[in-house]
């Protein structure tokens, strides 16, 4: 599993495109924090995309997966090794966002710049820490899609599902279908639960329905990813 994790880190750190994307996102996220935003929203999702999109499918398409799985390692070791590496990268990414926000705030204070919202580092830390479980769930969803979709189909499926799940309650409300709207909201809460992390890191109770939904969703996505990947056939080349 460590070898699998190490390889993903090597792949990501060896790519200039990944570096440029992550540095840009770190700066954007830090600016959001400094400006007093209480959520990094899209920045975290884009960070998860950069780190996790094609996490399995690209290896399957290139033939690397077949070479790796011809070695004495379990498919689960490969799969979860890569997932753990993605989480490590996301943790590093979020830590970098926070560190950069602190540096920008210090630099602004030294330069005597007083505009914008006051940056409270404790609040900034809460924001980035509460982004991590969300990122972990998004990465688990992408991992699941990546076990059976080709190329960057996982990222496409993630975006499409996100759009459909978020639009369904609104469209149902506009169409005056309260039952469908309720179903849409429940579906969203169970398929992509938010987890109420912000309230938890502000002293709210950990054991609440939202946390249970998040934990259940994580377990289901990771379990499904493992089952699908274990059953997957790997073809390559021509006869």
């Amino acid at each position, binding site marked *: 599993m460590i*070898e699998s994790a190490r390889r993903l880190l090597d792949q990501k750190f*060896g790519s200039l495109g990944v570096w440029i994307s992550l540095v840009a996102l770190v700066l954007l996220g830090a600016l959001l924090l400094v400006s007093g935003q209480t959520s990094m929203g899209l920045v975290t999702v884009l960070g998860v995309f950069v780190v996790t999109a094609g996490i399995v499918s690209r290896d399957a398409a290139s*033939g690397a997966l077949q*070479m790796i*799985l011809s070695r004495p*390692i379990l498919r689960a070791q490969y799969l979860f090794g890569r997932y753990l590496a993605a989480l490590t990268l996301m943790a590093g990414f979020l830590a970098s966002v926070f560190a950069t926000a602190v540096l920008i705030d210090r630099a602004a204070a030294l330069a005597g710049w007083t505009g914008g919202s006051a940056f409270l580092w404790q609040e900034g830390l809460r924001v980035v820490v509460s982004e991590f479980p969300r990122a972990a769930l998004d990465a688990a969803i992408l991992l699941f899609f990546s076990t059976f979709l080709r190329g960057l189909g996982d990222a496409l499926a993630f975006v499409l599902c996100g759009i459909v799940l978020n639009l369904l309650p609104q469209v149902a409300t506009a169409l005056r279908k309260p039952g469908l709207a309720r179903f849409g909201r429940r579906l969203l809460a169970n398929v992509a639960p938010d987890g109420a992390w912000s309230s938890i890191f502000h002293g709210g109770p950990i054991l609440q329905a939202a946390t249970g939904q998040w934990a259940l969703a994580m377990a289901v996505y990771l379990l499904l990813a493992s089952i699908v990947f274990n059953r997957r056939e790997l*073809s390559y080349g*021509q*006869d």
Partner: protein
Amino acid sequence: MSVIEVRGISKSYGRGRRAYPALADVSLSVARGETLGLIGPNGAGKTTLLSCLLGFLRPNAGTISIDGKAPDDLSIRARSGYMPERLGFDRELSGRDFLAHHWRLSRGDPERTEEEVLAAAARVDLEPAALHKKLRTYSRGMLQRIGVAQATFGDPSLLFLDEPASGTDPLGVAVVRDRILDAKKRGATIVLNSHQLAEVERVCDRVVFIERGRIAREEKLRGDGAAARRAILRTDPARAADAAFALSADGFSARAESEGIIRLTGSETDLSRAVRALVLRGDPVFEARSSADLEELFRGPAA
């Protein structure tokens, strides 16, 4: 004793009306220490068979066992080496990192990584300087060599090779062949999928010809019951006709041609006996070549 047992496997791609049969009722066994060649036209099912043997594909029917275990059993994989036709690995990795990664994946001692990486590169005549270059800068031949190097890590007792010498220069072909012969000497069981018939003939003990997903023909190239080989002996042109006549009189199937060439058909033992007979007669033997003529097997009608 058989190491690999394939019993009546069938494999189709797609479902329903779109189902395309890639393998149909294929059975074969590979003895311990045997080198089996898979030959056949493109699309015949060779790679599908190799993928089933490696556990990448699951047959729709039939069974495969390797030493009595499933092909994807970790204990089997721990002593297997595999080389795909195209080395589709991370192109941004250096050759050294690629080999180190595979050494660690094959449960090699991490302390010995550097030593093993250098030894593996040396085995396939890959310059140490090349190990620091990224795989994307490698030529096809270099990729094949490094692919063979990773497949032979830890001296595996089972080797699955898919077109190992494809795209390599003559020196590369010889290097790949030498590594296969080394593995044979160690007693490894090898399954080789290749279109390079001359190479298949040089290293394989037996070949199966796969056509439209079935084993159409099978030919033993070495040992008892090996197929008749065709040979060319070259002697003094002035004495070739007499020499061929003498060989025919001794029971050999021999025919004189121009420029001192004598064509023979027989087993490997027959051929060495023919050379000896000519030498004893005082006829010079300038050249002796033999082949199983796999091309003919390739072209021949389906059994």
